[in-house]
């Protein structure tokens, strides 16, 4: 087991490093169009061939990784922070505050995501910013539900009640007892979410959310390769494998971290 975690970490580190060093490693400018070299097969010149505009696929994958990973990290982190904040307040405060927040959560869970995202893209203009906000708006509710459940469970534990009896402040209790206990589940949630986010970024770029061409992340590359997958499967397979590999590694590490940090509540994590 330990070996497999190490392998996963190694692979992930390799991908991250390769993406970070993209400017040094990429053999070509990722956006350099070469109409004479359209849809070239794998060769020693273009290791992973070229796409429909003759751009080098390997270079685009290297650069795409930066966008995919950084964006996915940022979006997931932000979603978690919001979910954590509202979930903690909701679970800790209870009473009418909890009920009010829960109604808002239900509303956001019940709203069709597409309408929400289009409205956001429209008001903020297309681009990474609106993508960020849109993903935040559509996914914080699930997170906060999980956090709330977790907090309510911890709140009932005897040691928390004991601290409260000793006259500790709310901030102290939350900071000292809740957050450290939430860390385990949160790390796990985080790792599970990232793979999904990479995929949603891809599907959203078609609504004018997120990355605008020619910038491409892996998900966008998979989408763009759709009409060509029968004759040029490598265009879809290469970025697809990258997504699968990264999300597999992250999830595997998440499983490992969970075993380390948190043994009680595996079931909530698999919810997300």
């Amino acid at each position, binding site marked *: 087991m330990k070996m497999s975690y190490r392998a996963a970490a190694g692979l992930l580190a390799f991908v991250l490093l390769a993406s970070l060093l993209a400017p040094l490693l990429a053999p070509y400018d990722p956006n350099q169009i070469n*109409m004479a070299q359209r849809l070239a097969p794998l060769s020693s010149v273009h290791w992973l061939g070229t796409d*429909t505009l003759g751009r080098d696929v390997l270079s685009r994958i290297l650069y795409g990784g930066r966008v995919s990973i950084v964006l996915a990290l940022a979006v997931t982190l932000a979603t978690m922070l919001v979910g954590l904040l509202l979930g903690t307040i909701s679970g800790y405060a209870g009473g009418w505050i909890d009920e009010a927040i829960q109604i808002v959560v239900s509303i956001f869970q019940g709203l069709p995501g597409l309408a929400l995202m289009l409205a956001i*893209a429209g008001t903020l203009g297309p681009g990474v910013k609106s993508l960020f906000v849109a993903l935040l708006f559509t996914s914080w509710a699930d997170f906060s539900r999980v956090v709330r459940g977790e907090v309510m469970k911890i709140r009932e534990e005897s040691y928390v009640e004991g601290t409260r009896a000793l006259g500790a402040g709310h901030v102290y209790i939350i900071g000292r007892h809740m957050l450290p206990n939430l860390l385990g589940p949160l790390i796990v949630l985080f790792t599970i979410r990232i793979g999904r986010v990479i995929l949603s970024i891809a599907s959203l770029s*078609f609504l*004018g959310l997120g990355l605008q061409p*020619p910038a491409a992340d892996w998900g966008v590359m998979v989408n*763009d390769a759709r*009409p060509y997958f*029968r004759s040029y*499967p490598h265009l879809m397979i290469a970025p697809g494998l990258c997504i699968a590999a990264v999300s597999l590694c992250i999830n595997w590490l998440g499983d490992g971290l969970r075993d380390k940090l948190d043994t009680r509540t595996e079931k909530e994590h698999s919810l997300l």
Partner: protein
Amino acid sequence: MKRTQTAKNKKRIGVLFSLCLLLALMGCSAANGSNESSGNNGLSQQSAAPSAAADAASEEIVLAAPRDLAPGPQDAYYTSTILYVWEPLITASEDGKPAPKLAEAWEMSADGKEWTFMLRKGVTFHDGAPFNADAVLANFARYKQVSPKSSPFYTLDINNSYPSLKEAVKVDDSTIKLIFDNPQPTLLYSMINFSSPMYSPNNFDENGDFNGLPQGTGPFKLVQHEKDQFSLLEAYDGYYGEKAKAQKIRVRVIPDPDTRLAALKSGEILGVMDLGAIPPALAEELLKDDRFAVSTAKSTISHYLHPNGAKAPFNDVKMRQALSLMIDREQLVKELYLGYPTATANILNSTSPFYKDIPAVHHSEKAIALAHEVLGDSRQAVTLIVPTYGLDRYPYKAQAELLQAVLQELQLDVTIQILDGAAYKEAQAQGNFDLAMATQGLPNGDPYTILNNYMASEGSSNKSYTLGYTNARVDELLNQVKATLNMDDRAAIYNELQDIAAEELPTIPLFNDASLIAYNKEITGYGALVYGTTLPQLERVQ
């Protein structure tokens, strides 16, 4: 114990199911690989395909379209004209000129205010009602009642197609007369197809909507319709002309282009139709399998690059000229559209009989010089907006990326913004863009509407797309053409307008689209037309 037994079964099912999924996944990657290695595994499939398809479809031919070609009884037309269910008084010939359909002949009075139409005799509607002057008048009464009525195909608007119509009169059983307040020299053009549809007078309810399936005079009857699923056509035995060759044709709705391709390859459908029937990249893919063929014709759709002429840099005509010179239209058409469309520098679609051939000039050095003249040494950031609906039918994303790369040489740093249709229109209307990738369909052969919309200072497209184009001479010409009855004189004015447009570029024309369809070679007689297909000639290969 019973319980444990069922439990075991349950487990077995679970294992089986996960195995199936795994197999599917592996099988797919295998399918992928084999396709790559052998381009035409068509031979092996050919033997299998007929056995699967033959029994069910021995008389029914199944086609597919990306959208429902029969929006239903609330629609102005119920079905698109390309299903050949209803027919108009006037249709268009292949060169875009008005041609007889249910009206066999016509006559314009000298002042252009009275038009007499001689109707085809011996025609009956699908419901058995005779087609005659009374039926035509009933249809005109409906036009009046429901105008303007929207439809995904056209807007039925009597005030637009028959401006200043005073009345429609029956002369005798097979002759009617339309009387106008003002001269209508181009009436025939505006009556083409969607402006003069004829249905049985018993086909309407009190609101002018259809009271059941449409009862037209066409070679096909619509016998069954499931919204967003299929339309079932049956040959009309009582058709006055050459009867449809296929007894039954089912037109299915398959919105996704990949699925349509798969359905073609599996033999489930034998052909595709309608706009965007098969995107060029998929047509190339399909043709690798020699069971299939494509057919093309000119299309009424033109592709443009709309500049925002209300602000710098494209308020400067030199900059627009630089754009036009810089873009290698031939390359664009050849590489991204597989050569089916035709590059053009003319604002007017080539299906118009008034179309003047203006060759596209590609001259990078000149373009760069012009841009430098306008921008000096500075670079300019510009925004190119792309509508999402363009991405489904056309390789618009690649086209945008290509333009972005090309325009770099004109000292333009292009930012691409993909916007959904409605947002795109709003950005255009508010001028929140510099360049917009756009398409425009030609409603009928007479170019007045399109030229007026784009080039008149107060033209609706000019305004709503923020083209910012004004030219006093153009306004004068457009006024003049309205009063010109002689077709040759009109043609001369249209020619001048086309020349002005090519010179001053209110918008930058890129190419005339091609109408592209694909079919299985098991059927024959199926070809693309400017608008629609040769559906009545379609039949199974014997």
